């Protein structure tokens, strides 16, 4: 089973302490997904 998942990039948060962009979304079963896109 192949699928793709699109997440809203506006939900991403910059973490200045660790200098990283954090995208914490709904849990995704990796065996079911081929592409995860984060878009505006």
């Amino acid at each position: 089973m192949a699928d793709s998942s699109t997440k809203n990039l506006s939900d991403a948060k910059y973490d200045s302490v660790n200098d990283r962009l954090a995208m914490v979304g709904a849990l995704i079963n990796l065996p079911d997904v081929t592409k995860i896109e984060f878009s505006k």
Partner: protein
Amino acid sequence: MGYWCNLLQGRGDQTCFYSTGEAKTMESKAYQAYLHQREATIVPMQDGSKLAAVEEVRTTVDLQSHPVDLHVMPNCGAECQAAGRYLNDDGLVLDTTANQNVYQLTYSHTNATAQEVPALLTLTVTRQENGKATNIDKELVNQNDVLAAVYISNAKALNLD
């Protein structure tokens, strides 16, 4: 040569740095440790300290009941890219054939400038044909086959802040 980022949270004031291969001196008191990720890589990781505090995780077996995070650290030319491989099994099985999921991970976004933040970040997950846990219900070995969060390291230098 390239960027390195410390994945352990809030430790040290050099979260990310550029190295040309020189030696780095860092404090190493009993409570100080570092885990640096090299650019162009993707690595799976679980925050054991947080899971111990919030979910009462105590052992590596306990960790298998919780989803994983992916840490992406791109290398930028015209495009920013990273790649990695993630293997997941129950940690006990000797014959991993049909008992292990093997994922090839690639990431890309258009190189950003301060004026133009990329509109699309793409993470591609490809399971190897000979790396599928078909012996296991729904091919989910455990919760380590579930993705919780994606982190893009060195975000400020990539204009993703």
